[in-house]
């Protein structure tokens, strides 16, 4: 189905990779690639949320700032960004009555990729009975010529609570960057008790800036946030969120336990300004400190 996008953007459908005829092992290994993986399990013990298991390798590390309540994990990409061929995987699980928050130290930059190479990030979340998990990375900034694929799956127990917020910035706006040729694939798949609760997929290929300028797409907005909040009492936040949103945002209680919010803004600063009060509300003023810096 890529063909629609390709035609629309006037891109040749032929292979864009320019393969050189030198086919030795050394040329294959010429480009170093970042590989990072973390697995973290949080539990509830002695009246508080704490770490039960942690495993980290490669270019991904977790830091645990001391906090009054909840378990907070700050992800650090020691490679300093993502480029084509990089592979990151994150697995996080909250069990018991654990409240866990995952965030990033700073905005994630997705750099220009070598032709034919795609960076990947795979996130798997599990939230057990009575537990809560907040997945709230700071902005992901897409650079022109990037190629990036994200996949997030979450499995929730019946009464588990999950907050997912993913702010996205299309290009380095301050320096006038446009995404004239880039690839971004994103997929969020949330299941409760094994039943599909929420599914969203976005594919932006080619001239992303031109697509975002379309009236029913983004009308020229350069920043966007997608937020999903699922909890047995999700509906009690609906009125607050409606009142907090600007004209370029919307919120809907799709099911009794499923609240979704989509917000567009001209840049990441304006996006954050709208998003912060919303996140304060949904985290009971427990927004990670790094979001404030």
């Amino acid at each position: 189905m890529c063909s629609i996008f390709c035609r629309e953007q006037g891109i040749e459908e032929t292979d864009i990779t320019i393969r050189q005829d030198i086919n030795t092992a050394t040329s294959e290994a010429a480009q170093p690639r970042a590989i990072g993986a973390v697995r973290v399990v949080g539990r509830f013990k002695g009246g508080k949320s704490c770490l039960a298991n942690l495993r980290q390798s490669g270019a991904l590390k977790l830091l645990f700032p001391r906090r009054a309540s909840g378990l907070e994990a700050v992800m650090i990409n020691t490679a300093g960004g993502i480029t084509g061929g990089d592979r990151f995987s994150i697995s996080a699980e909250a069990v018991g009555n654990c409240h866990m928050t995952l965030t990033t130290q700073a905005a994630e930059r997705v750099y220009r990729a070598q032709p034919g190479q795609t960076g990947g990030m795979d996130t798997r979340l599990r939230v057990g009975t009575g537990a809560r998990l907040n997945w709230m990375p700071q902005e992901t900034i897409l650079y022109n010529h990037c190629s990036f694929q994200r996949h997030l799956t979450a499995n929730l127990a019946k009464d588990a609570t999950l907050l997912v917020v993913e702010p996205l910035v299309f290009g380095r706006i301050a320096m006038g960057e446009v995404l004239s040729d880039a690839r971004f694939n994103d997929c969020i798949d949330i299941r409760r008790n094994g039943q599909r609760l929420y599914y969203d997929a976005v594919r932006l290929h080619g001239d992303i800036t031109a697509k975002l300028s379309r009236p029913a797409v983004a009308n020229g907005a350069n920043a966007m946030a997608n937020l999903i909040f699922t909890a047995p009492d999700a509906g009690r936040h609906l009125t607050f969120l409606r009142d907090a949103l600007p004209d370029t945002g919307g919120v809907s209680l799709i099911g009794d336990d499923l609240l979704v919010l989509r917000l567009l803004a001209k840049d990441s600063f304006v996006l954050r300004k709208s998003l912060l009060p919303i996140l304060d509300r949904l985290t009971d003023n427990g927004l990670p400190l790094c979001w404030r810096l």
Partner: protein
Amino acid sequence: MVTGALIPMPTDPGLTRLQQWLSPSYPIGAFAYSHGLETAIGTCAIISSDDLRMWLTDLLKNGAGYSDPILLVAAYRSENAEALQDIEQQARAFAPSKERLAETALQGAAFCQTTSAISDHDIPDLTYPVGLGYAARRHGLPLDLTVHMYLHSFVSNLVAAAQRLMRVGQVEGQRILTDLAPLIAQITQDALTSDLTDLSGSCFLADIATMQHETQYSRMFRS
């Protein structure tokens, strides 16, 4: 070459059935849904007929016009009840807002109930594109024509909705539909080679419009 003689052509019963299913008189209540157009027109995101044409083009390329045919094709090709239920679950989970879920679920339920009542096939309640794909398969109707006519009725219904909300004349409405015909044909062809891994959407402002519609002060439509 003109022979002057009329060539008798057999009427294709499948074509007649599709025409019946996808006509505005089939009682699925399509007239009640504006797919967010009521908000987009109310907030002046759509003012002229050119704006309307652009908006509908976006919906076809990046919105439900792109994703519904993928669901329809998957349902048509599903091999058993379990696979069909998986597609149905994905169709519901993919709805971007409460009113969009109601739009596809209620039209779908009405379609499935009516179609079951007038045929020998028992069609369970499914979302609209999934139910149509499944029913078309059970009736042995051609997939390409089903997708094509589904997309045409989708756009046609939205043009009719816009004509009740803004100044678009009868001829102008039909002109928009004519202009969009090649795109509809193209998307139909692309959908035939799709599978559920292609399911995606990027009509963010159209989705937001259907969310905002929930609290719109004055409304004629259910979405």
